[in-house]
């Protein structure tokens, strides 16, 4: 018998749990300053997260998906992407969206139930949040197809959860990406849980990265709590995609440190010991310890930055809360390029009803 295929999945890690370097730094230009910038954005992401949850708890924001524990993945993607690349996110990529230029108040506006939160011009060609699981993976392949047809040197980057990798859309996306060698990078935020369903129930394979083998593309794991490792694998994968050298699947191992969303209660299904252990591995403290030990960050900077992000987030929250709702006509005005005649009557009626004294006046 001949062996016709052999595959290996490698896990990249540079920092241990205490933030100690395990291997020489990868060769990435200006890595130290990029890591400092990463760290700043991770701290901002945490501040945004607590503010959003506080707003939700006080009835000032809708259901919110916390990104606690995924900060290193998100900011590393944000750092490695170029402005001309395209982000096709899922619903847990807040930090990356901020780094791509979305103002914090506009991000809150989205989670406040307002379509304008997906409309900000700074989002460029990036897709809005994607709620129907795994569909974004195929959109990313479509974006990559357009890039490839035009022969451009840029790439599509999409993120998905561990649960999402079970859906056909994801497998179909990997497959076409491999068949057509598309300039796309798939990042799996494997945070071990899909709401209440643990990783083992999703898939019988030892790693999710090995799904890449069936599609003939590169697959690898990376410690999702390790910003240096993430930089290394993402830089390489994105550059390869831009250069036309093909797609990659990166499984980033993380842990969902929060409830699935504010509508969830993880104590119903998740062991507290597991959660406590996961906090020992969390990404923010790990990077801070590393930066401290290298003299790239100190207590004073920490204090100032914490104050700064709290101020930024508070200002953004105030700005968000001051944004009045859209007029009711807005639900008609973006349905079609031009409103069909037949809908004009409904639009008028909706406007009348929304006026003071109308049945929908609140």
């Amino acid at each position, binding site marked *: 018998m001949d062996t016709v295929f052999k595959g290996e999945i490698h896990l990249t890690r540079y920092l241990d749990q205490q933030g100690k370097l395990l291997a020489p730094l990868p060769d990435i230009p200006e890595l130290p300053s990029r890591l400092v910038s990463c760290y700043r954005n991770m701290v901002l992401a945490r501040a945004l997260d607590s503010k959003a949850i506080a707003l939700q708890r006080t009835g000032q924001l*809708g*259901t919110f998906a916390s990104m606690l524990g995924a900060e290193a993945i998100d900011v590393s993607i944000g750092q490695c992407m170029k402005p001309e690349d395209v982000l096709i996110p899922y*619903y847990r990529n807040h930090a990356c969206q901020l780094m791509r230029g979305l103002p914090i108040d506009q991000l809150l506006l989205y989670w*406040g*139930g*307002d*379509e304008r939160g997906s409309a900000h011009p700074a989002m460029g060609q990036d897709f809005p*949040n994607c*709620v*129907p*699981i*795994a569909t974004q993976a195929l959109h990313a392949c479509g974006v990559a197809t357009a890039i490839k047809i035009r022969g451009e040197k840029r790439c599509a980057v999409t993120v998905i959860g561990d*649960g*999402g990798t*079970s*859906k*056909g*859309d994801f497998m179909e996306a990997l497959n076409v990406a491999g068949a057509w060698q598309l300039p796309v990078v798939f990042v799996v935020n494997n945070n071990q849980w*899909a*709401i*209440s*369903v643990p990783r083992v*129930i*999703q*898939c019988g394979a030892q790693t999710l990265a090995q799904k890449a083998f069936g599609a003939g593309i590169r697959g690898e794991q990376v410690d999702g709590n390790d910003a240096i490792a993430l930089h290394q694998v993402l830089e390489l994968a994105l550059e390869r995609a831009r250069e036309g050298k093909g797609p990659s699947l990166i499984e980033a191992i993380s842990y969902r440190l929060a409830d699935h969303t504010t*509508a*969830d209660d993880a104590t*119903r*299904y998740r062991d507290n010991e597991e959660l406590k252990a996961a906090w020992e591995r969390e990404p923010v403290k790990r990077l801070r310890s590393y930066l401290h030990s290298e003299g790239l960050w100190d207590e004073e900077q920490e204090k100032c930055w914490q104050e700064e992000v709290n101020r930024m987030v508070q200002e953004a929250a105030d700005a968000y809360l001051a944004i009045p*709702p*859209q007029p*009711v006509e*807005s*639900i*008609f005005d973006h*349905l079609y390029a031009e409103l069909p005649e*037949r*809908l004009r009557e*409904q639009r008028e009626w*909706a406007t009348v*009803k*929304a006026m003071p004294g109308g*049945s*929908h006046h*609140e």
Partner: protein
Amino acid sequence: MSNAITMVEAVNLALGRAMSQDEKVVLLGEDIGTNGGVFRATVDLKAKFGNKRVLDTPLAETMIAGLAVGMAAQGLKAVAEIQFMGFIFPTMEHIVGHAARLRNRTRGRLSCPLVLRAPYGGGIHAPEHHSESTEALFAHIPGLRVVIPSSPARAYGLLLAAIDCPDPVLFLEPKRIYRASKQPVEDNGVPLPLDTCFTLREGDDITLISWGAMISETLQAADRLADEGVSCEVIDVATLNPLDLDTMLASVTKTGRCVIVHEAPKSGAVGAEIAASLSERGLLELRAPIARVAGYDTVMPYYRLENHYMPNSADVIDAVRQTLEFA
């Protein structure tokens, strides 16, 4: 005396009842086991019946529907939960292309008695894709039954009937009223018929036809109109396909007027089917055009504007007054 329970508790009660009566009943879906479903509709059932009867599946709706087809063809009673109706679209290939036609294609050799349950509808300030009412897409499919309860007791009886039913059933649960009110429900295992509407209130002047969460708005309107001396008959359609036209036609023949109320966008919806059928068979009984109170023909607004979209009792009252003014 039976306890007063909510609609979601009634769903749970019916599932438990069906599972203890018939070991062929198997539940499957995302988060339905340990977590008891994101709305808790399946709470405690895994503990009670074990993990061969309550299957926590990988996250994949196409798979859930396809499995249900295979399980049902094997004689199991697959009751699958789709976490929100907004995520039901991947199932359509299996529902439309297979579940609804397996009996017909094989001239009865195989059949597909599955139940697909899904919470649907607006009014709870949910994230994007969590609030639509797309029942018309499914009511259009020959071979598929579409059932929507509007109270705890009807949820209990209709779900038992859906599970008993030899045909595939889409069972849509209006989540806005999952916990809106309580009602005593006796756990007697008695199914309700899937081939009749329910007349919730009798009246002489006008027939109000609705289903799901809009029943509450419609009943409120009927109450207020009663104060003005207008007597409304209120019908809960409950089974959207196949429709019980006899009950509706008899009522409209009596009142001569009809307003149909639904949350789904107005055009191409089930209300249009009801209006057309009533006109076909009862045009000469009608004293005024049939009116429809419905959602706008727009994408369901994200939640900050959703109240503008949702029809309410004031809209129903307006439509009733206009119909009465006509004749």
